[in-house]
């Protein structure tokens, strides 16, 4: 390739290959056609999957990134192609998912002329990207792509967007690629301060009722083993945020469940009784803290995070430990004493008993005829041996799935946490499957979110991506309906849905599909779905007006968590 000029479009493909990319998700269009022409030529090296909507492509790239730990790539044309990516980009920004989005742009001489399919995607995406850049000359391509991948994956990961004008895609130049090794204005790996480690160790050794809350930082930092060592040596009960789920197996004896709005009873109540709270790779989201003024106000707080901007953002902490938790956890674990906290942990057990009697039992062993979301999740656990990647959408089914799904391996819970993007799960599941072909991937989706990106059944059919899709259908936008019941006197404004025949729709895409309504049919149907080697849609008709508990009403203290 030496001394041979290549086009900007070909340089895009070589740059992707140089970054180890072998799969991109996208949708073609006028301003990105030169790049697609190169995809055609390089189809043996680089697989392109045609989504049915650009939002599907970007969520698939997110799902791929979350299950594989690699950078996901989505590509679209200018104008509407680019704007359709924005929801996924915003989702990746708030959930720290490493993706690179590539958009075509009108030729540079047309910029600002309101040309056909011109939109200012740089301006539009700026507040929701970790970094973005508009390429107007082919010679910029190697350096910008190298930077884009470096920025997307390093430090606290996030989305990067590269906009390439059409003339830059045609332009010929001498291509030479070298990986980005650092950017002088960007420090993704802040040095760990030894004093903060010592201060943390002192607090941990002294604590009588310590409590760990971990988030996705443990997964993004590949720190699952270091975290497990820390939990086990310290003997401290640990609870997870929704995005931290699966970093420690469900069955681990020190895993005490979920914190937050629909988290478990014990972890929420005891947040306000612990004497030390150790937050690892989490960001004190309002869905976790409830009222921040009363949140763990009695406790000392240690906060481990790679992003200095998270320290004291929502909750003031006593000992910040800035840095990669893979390193800081190791340093802390080395210095702390071996301990157990049996009496303190028995408090979690006692509260779990109450939660079981008041909530879990009726979720999982209902006496009424109607199926529950909870028993559906348990059936999935049973036939996947509790070791599937579970991809959820947003709403009641998401909370139920996170509460009851079993996890053995990390990177197995994929959901839209921060942004709460309905329509995320179906495309994210197909991405997750492509990122972890050896794993069973089960998408659990409500009837509302399913219909927001249902067109991706076409992608799943065309590529025969063997994802298992469970639609938990209650004919309602269930979470909004629950809030209307609890806080708006049951005025069900625009939450009841008259749904189509989901089995017929799946069959229209030539996908295997069935519907269950009766308890006796549930397990056999789940078994058939999991045993199938092909994509499969299982609609489970569940009780229309069940609620998700426990629940912390919006703005209330975590210790005001309600069981009914």
């Amino acid at each position, binding site marked *: 390739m030496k001394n041979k000029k290549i086009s900007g479009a070909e340089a895009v493909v070589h740059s992707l290959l140089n970054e180890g990319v072998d799969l991109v998700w996208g949708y073609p269009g006028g301003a990105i056609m030169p790049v697609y022409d190169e995809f055609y030529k390089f189809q043996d090296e680089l697989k392109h999957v045609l989504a049915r909507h650009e939002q599907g492509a970007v969520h698939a790239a997110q799902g791929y990134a979350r299950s594989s730990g690699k950078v996901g790539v989505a590509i679209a044309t200018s104008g509407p192609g680019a704007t359709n990516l924005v929801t996924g980009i915003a989702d990746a920004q708030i959930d720290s998912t490493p993706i690179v989005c590539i958009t075509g742009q009108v030729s540079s001489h047309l910029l600002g002329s309101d040309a056909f399919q011109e939109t200012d995607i740089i*301006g539009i995406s700026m*507040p929701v990207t970790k970094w973005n*850049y508009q390429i107007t000359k082919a010679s910029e391509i190697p350096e910008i792509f190298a930077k884009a991948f470096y*920025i997307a994956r390093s430090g606290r990961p996030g989305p990067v967007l590269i906009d390439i004008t059409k003339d830059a895609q045609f332009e010929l130049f001498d291509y030479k690629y070298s990986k980005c*090794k650092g950017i002088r204005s960007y420090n993704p790996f802040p040095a760990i301060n030894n004093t903060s480690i010592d201060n943390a160790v002192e607090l941990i050794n002294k604590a009588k009722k310590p409590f760990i809350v971990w988030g996705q930082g443990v997964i993004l930092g590949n720190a699952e083993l270091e975290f497990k060592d820390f939990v086990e040596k310290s003997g401290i009960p640990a609870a997870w945020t929704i995005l931290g789920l699966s970093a420690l197996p469900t069955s681990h004896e020190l895993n005490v469940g979920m914190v937050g709005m629909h988290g478990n009873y014990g972890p929420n109540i005891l947040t306000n009784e612990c004497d030390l709270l150790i937050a690892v790779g989490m960001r004190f989201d309002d869905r976790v803290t409830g009222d921040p003024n009363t949140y763990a106000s009695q406790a000392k707080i240690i906060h481990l995070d790679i992003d*200095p*901007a998270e320290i004291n953002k929502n909750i003031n902490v006593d000992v910040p430990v800035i840095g990669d938790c893979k390193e800081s956890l190791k340093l802390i674990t080395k210095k702390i004493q071996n301990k157990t906290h049996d009496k303190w942990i028995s408090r979690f057990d006692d509260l779990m008993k109450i939660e079981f009697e008041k909530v879990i039992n009726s979720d999982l062993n209902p006496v009424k005829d109607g199926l529950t979301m909870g028993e559906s999740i348990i059936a999935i656990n049973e036939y996947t041996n509790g070791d599937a990647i579970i991809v959820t959408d947003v709403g009641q089914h998401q909370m139920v799935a996170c509460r009851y799904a079993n996890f053995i391996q990390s990177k197995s819970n994929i959901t839209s946490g921060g942004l709460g993007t309905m329509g995320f799960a179906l495309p994210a599941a197909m991405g997750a499957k492509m990122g972890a072909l050896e794993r069973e991937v089960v998408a659990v989706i409500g009837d509302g979110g399913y219909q927001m990106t249902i067109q991706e059944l076409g992608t799943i059919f065309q590529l025969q991506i063997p994802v298992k899709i469970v639609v938990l259908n209650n004919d309602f936008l269930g979470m909004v309906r629950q809030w209307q019941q609890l806080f708006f006197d049951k005025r069900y404004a625009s939450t009841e849905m008259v749904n189509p025949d989901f089995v017929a729709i799946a069959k229209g895409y030539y996908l295997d599909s069935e519907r269950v309504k009766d308890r006796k049919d549930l397990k056999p149907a789940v078994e058939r779905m999991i045993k199938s080697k092909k994509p499969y849609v299982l609609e489970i008709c569940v009780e229309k007006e069940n609620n998700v508990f426990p629940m912390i009403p919006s703005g209330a203290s975590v210790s005001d968590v309600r069981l009914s």
Partner: protein
Amino acid sequence: MENKKNYTISVYTENNVGLLHRLSAIFLKRHINIESFTTSECEIKDVFRFIIVVKMTKDDVQKVAKQIEKQVEVIRVFYHTDNETIFQESALYKMKSSSLFEERHIQNIIKESNARIVTVNPDFFVIEKTGFRDDTEKLYKDLEEYGLLQFTRSGRIAVSKEKMGISEILNTFKNQK
């Protein structure tokens, strides 16, 4: 509630075409009104310095500064109270030339306020005044009754009393490489 104060936020950045938008979006997202915003190349070649004046609580300015520093192309962010900086702003006042000769008092005002006349031509003349906000405002009030054709004021420019050490930061990076 903590008191709001004037803070001068100094942002050292790479030279990047979209950065202005990225920085202003951080304030927009939090519904913070920017009092003034200026930018220029600083003492280091190719490094730009934004000077942003906002009225905020210390807690909030700390959080915003961290969000700004988090941006990939931002080298360092500092924030200072008025006491911790030397700051000035400039104002230009355009008036009819006839008033300079007909209203003798104007010449006294210019002299007393330490302003200077930048240009005079048959139709208009322009006064320039550099100082604190109070100074440019006072001159505005004094001149207002004689008829201002145009008035404009710059954003704040400021240097800090403390050392900022940007060259050191950049050198550390160079040495690591």
